[in-house]
């Protein structure tokens, strides 16, 4: 099986009493933020150790069936969800590469309006000037081979959305992705089987390792080691994610700093477990998302949703209205959830599976949730309730998509909304969605972009970390991921996370150079 150099897995430390290491910077998490930071620091000649809770899954072991993928690549087997009036599935990767190993590789730069809002309302952009972000993005776009999805792999689903937008006069584009030479297997969620996606497990983690970094997988960071009021290292524990089998303790001493990049869910949990955030009381608060809902349409012609880029076409026409429509090719296990009914009626619909097109919408909702660590169990508790206006936004987006699908010749659409028929054949019926109460429980939403749970700012009373990512309460501890973003942004966040992490890490590397020169 394919292995990475400088990598230590659970299997390598079985039977060992304890593992110790020392470095300049220890990075917790190997997703977009952690891997980017490790790549920048390792290239600058700094000694870097990466910790990853999930496992390294070689691409030869990836499977097409969703259940196997959920077991090996996804946090809580994809069953992580909010505990609120209606469950919102919170999907996150838990493997080397984090969520970049299972997402659809969609690349967007942070909209300038959002950057301006972060500055105006939060004073949060001192170290992430837009021009600097653009320079970082140019490097990243080159290194991750970012390009427009080629026409050959748009798939029928993608071409359908493109045609519908053109007919309606909406702006539309093939999605820009960090994929080169996509084979159109529609298997992004199961881990790219051909490794064409330049997710962090294929790009920045190997690059950092080649520059001398070391990686410990199957190891969950637990405690920050403090000395003299500074963070000087991390203690963690090896543990197989699948069987929960415990291994030895890992202690990493970090001479320069500890970088936390575990996502907007796991980062606040780690901070809370270490008693950080008492000053601002903001750790885990202000959780924001882009909850998404989907609409399936049944067409006369086959859609073959198992061919093409998983997500190939999008329209930003409604961005100002706070939603974005995109195509999504779901594996049959998930697509079948769109089919209404059970039993004989359900099975008869499987014959229509190849005629099904699915579009999704991600909404820039206004609701704020929170993340906290259970006092007794230590488990992760996520609370998030959509506001009535958020529910109305999702309803509007569903109606917009239905209108476009009918325009393109859909026989029926499957809205999956409680209170509407399972199959809807006309727009009059679809518009009855507005007569249904604005209750988040009427549809199944998925929240995959997460922000704001350790927000950055200049004032320690209103922010958790400074504008350079350094924790106000504990010098030497830096938060690098989307937890620090003051708001959600209306577009897929991976590129912004990489850009911000790049600038934070570059600043640390520059400080190091300045110290060495002095």
């Amino acid at each position, binding site marked *: *099986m394919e292995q990475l150099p400088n990598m230590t897995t*659970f*299997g390598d430390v079985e039977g060992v009493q304890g593992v110790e290491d020392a470095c300049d910077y220890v990075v917790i998490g190997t997703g977009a933020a952690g891997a980017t930071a490790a790549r920048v620091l390792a290239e600058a000649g700094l000694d870097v150790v990466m910790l990853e809770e999930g*496992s390294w*899954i070689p*691409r*030869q*072991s*990836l*499977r*097409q*069936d*969703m*259940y*196997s993928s*959920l*077991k*090996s690549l996804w946090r*809580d*087997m994809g*069953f992580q969800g909010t505990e609120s*009036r*209606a*469950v919102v599935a919170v999907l996150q990767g838990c493997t080397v590469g984090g969520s970049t190993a299972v997402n659809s590789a969609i690349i967007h730069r942070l909209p300038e309006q959002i950057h301006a809002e972060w500055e105006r309302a939060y004073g949060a952009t001192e170290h992430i000037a837009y021009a600097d972000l653009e320079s970082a993005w140019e490097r990243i776009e080159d290194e991750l081979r970012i390009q427009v999805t080629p*026409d*050959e792999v*748009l*798939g*029928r689903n993608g*071409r359908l959305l493109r045609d519908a937008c053109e007919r309606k006069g909406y702006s539309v584009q093939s999605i820009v992705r960090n994929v080169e030479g996509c*084979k*159109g*297997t*529609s298997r992004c969620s199961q881990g790219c*089987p051909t490794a064409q996606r330049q997710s962090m497990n294929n790009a920045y983690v190997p690059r950092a390792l080649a520059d001398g970094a070391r990686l410990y997988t199957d190891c969950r960071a637990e405690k920050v080691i403090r000395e003299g009021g500074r963070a000087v290292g991390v203690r963690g524990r090896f543990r*197989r994610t*699948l*069987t929960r089998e415990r291994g030895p303790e890992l202690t990493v001493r970090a001479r320069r700093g500890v970088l936390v990049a575990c996502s907007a869910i796991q980062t606040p949990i780690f901070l809370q477990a270490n008693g950080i955030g008492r000053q601002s009381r903001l750790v885990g608060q202000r959780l924001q998302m882009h909850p998404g809902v989907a609409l399936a349409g049944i067409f006369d012609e*086959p859609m*073959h949703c*198992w*061919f093409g880029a998983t997500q190939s076409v999008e329209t930003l026409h409604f961005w100002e209205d706070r939603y974005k429509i995109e195509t999504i090719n779901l594996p*049959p*296990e998930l697509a*079948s*959830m769109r089919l209404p009914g*059970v*039993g*004989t009626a*359900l*099975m*008869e619909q*499987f*014959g229509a*599976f*190849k005629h099904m097109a699915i579009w999704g919408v991600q909404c820039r909702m206004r609701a704020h949730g929170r993340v906290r660590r259970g006092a007794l169990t230590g*488990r992760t508790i996520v609370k998030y309730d959509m506001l009535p206006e958020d529910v109305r936004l999702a309803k509007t987006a569903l109606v917009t998509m239905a209108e476009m699908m009918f325009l393109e010749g859909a026989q029926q659409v499957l809205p999956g909304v*409680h209170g509407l028929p399972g199959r809807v054949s006309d727009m009059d019926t679809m518009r009855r969605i507005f007569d249904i109460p604005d209750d988040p*429980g009427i549809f*199944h939403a998925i929240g995959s972009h997460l922000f704001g749970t350790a927000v950055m700012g200049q004032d320690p009373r209103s922010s958790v970390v400074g504008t350079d990512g350094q924790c106000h309460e504990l010098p030497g501890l830096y938060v690098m991921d989307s937890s620090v973003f003051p708001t959600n942004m209306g577009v897929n966040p991976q590129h912004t996370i990489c850009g911000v992490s790049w600038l934070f890490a570059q600043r640390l590397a520059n400080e190091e150079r300045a110290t060495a020169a002095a």
Partner: protein
Amino acid sequence: MRRLLAFERRWFQAMVETILPSGASEQFPLGGQDVPLQRFLADFQRHAPLKIVVGLRATLLMIFMAPLFMSGMRRTFMALGAERREAAILRMRHSDVYVIRELPVLLKTIGCMAVLGVPEVQRSLGMAQVDTCSPDWVGESRTEDADAGPTRPNTITEPVVPASAAAGS
């Protein structure tokens, strides 16, 4: 808490076979009876987060009991015939109470993972390209490494491009 009892395993089998029955459709005859559901369940209860296993057990109990409170049924789920089992689940699915209508969804999700993840089933859905080997849980016996994640190498080939999907843009 993690290990389902024998009667719960029977309920699971009966409920998934109700949601995804075999031989119900001429176009798509494969269903719950055509895959080793008990092997899937054993794998699921071993690996799923504890709260989900607990949620599954609660779901099984609720669906088992629900027909007792439904007019025209007044029996447990297992005492009903196939058609009325289907009707009972459908009535739960249409309930105005969020928790009740979501219970069958959890079971449908888990059932679909089992039934629709098998290459033979995917092929019968019309998918042109499927895995060359079945998921680990389908196998006769667990290997030593089964818990370390998928270990058998999979053959990855170029996707077969349906003519309509690849048509000029």
